[in-house]
């Protein structure tokens, strides 16, 4: 098995890595780049815990072979923080609304809701539900997560 030279941008930073072709994008992010905010849940594209943004679209990083991310731009939960130590308004809202219980789904939820607010800064409840339909939470029953996304949208709209 020939190793693969993978060049891509993650959270704004260029990377050039040598990876084995059978690795998933998820493995490269967690193991090679130590971005362990990206969680592995079901491994079969159902739970959304491994959600990252690839070239502007949310994807399950367990469903992408490392080589398929060649020349792409990836954003993970670690890239949401704009300044060192300062949470993204979505992250703050998740804390304030009690949307984090065990926390395992949180990074994926954040990426799906970040992606939603990028294109739709003032979503209604149905649009929020559609946007996080591919992210499972087994603790909150989703209510607090939906509240958090509404709260973040409100705060972000007030700021701008």
């Amino acid at each position, binding site marked *: 098995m020939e190793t693969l030279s993978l060049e891509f941008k993650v959270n704004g930073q260029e990377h050039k890595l040598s990876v084995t072709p059978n690795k998933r994008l998820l493995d490269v992010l967690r193991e090679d780049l130590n971005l362990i905010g990206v969680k592995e849940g079901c491994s*079969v594209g159902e739970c959304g815990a491994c959600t990252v943004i690839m070239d502007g*679209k949310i*994807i*399950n990083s367990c469903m992408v072979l490392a080589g398929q991310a*060649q020349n792409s731009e990836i954003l993970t939960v670690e890239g949401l923080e704009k300044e060192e130590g300062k949470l993204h308004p979505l992250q703050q809202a998740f804390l304030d609304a009690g949307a984090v219980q065990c926390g395992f789904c949180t990074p994926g939820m954040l990426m799906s809701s970040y992606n939603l607010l990028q294109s739709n800064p003032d979503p209604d409840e149905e649009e929020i539900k559609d946007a996080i*339909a591919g992210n499972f939470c087994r603790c909150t029953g989703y209510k607090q997560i939906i509240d958090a996304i509404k709260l973040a949208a409100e705060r972000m709209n007030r700021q701008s």
Partner: protein
Amino acid sequence: MDFDFLQPTDLDEVCKLLNEYKGKVKIISGGTDFMIDLHKDELSPEIEYIIDVSNLRDLNYIKEDDNKIIIGAGTTHNEIANNPIVNKWAPVLAKATNSIGSPQIRNRGTLAGNIVTASPAADSVPALLVLNGKVKIKTSSTTKEIPLEDFFIKPYQSKINQDELIVEISFKKPPMECKSGFKKLTRRKAVDKARLNIAVLALQNNIDEIEILRIAPGSITPTPERFEKTENILLNKRPTKELIKKAAEQVSSTMIEKSGYRWSTEYKKPVIKTMTRRILTRVLEVE
């Protein structure tokens, strides 16, 4: 599972590689089925090479000419569901692709992938069947086009050969006045396979007689197909509640004829009947 990863830059190279490594090679595009097989270690041990076509622009397009809509094999479900041409001419396909998986899956999964897996429950397939869809298949030296309804052999097995690649899916533009519907029944609202699905396309003339009727239920036969016997019950007639009821019962009995009596039949028999009745009532606007 060890393999070499190949990323050709154009279609001819893909076909050349498929021919050269025949039997030892597998295509990956959206990966939403492939990656599950990889994770479960269920890929054939003969596979030595993986060809990635997910970034091939040659396979990613939605075009129209005077008569047809033409969709590149690598176009994703979300690209199809949100495309104005598809929404104008084939809302049934937009609806079906929009029902697949989750936003994450729809951003990766492709139309050809949904077809080539040959799942009896594929959502795009009933929609493409009522559109009389065709599949264009290429090898390094040939190109052929076959009707989608002839593409499947049995569950999870299609007529695609090891050196062949689906490059395009196309269908004739239905008359603008056509009405259509797609309905899918799942255990939960998102991220679920269809327990049952059904697509319908119909055209009625100015005295309400049905001139075109195509009905394709999914997940009830080994390979998805149009139910022409059912269509004939309503064709050239004005739709009534009674005729629709008769058609719905016919779908149910055809299912048993084609699939035998299975563990799920007790459930599917009344449910597909009701789904058929409801979708026909809605599409044909019967009070």
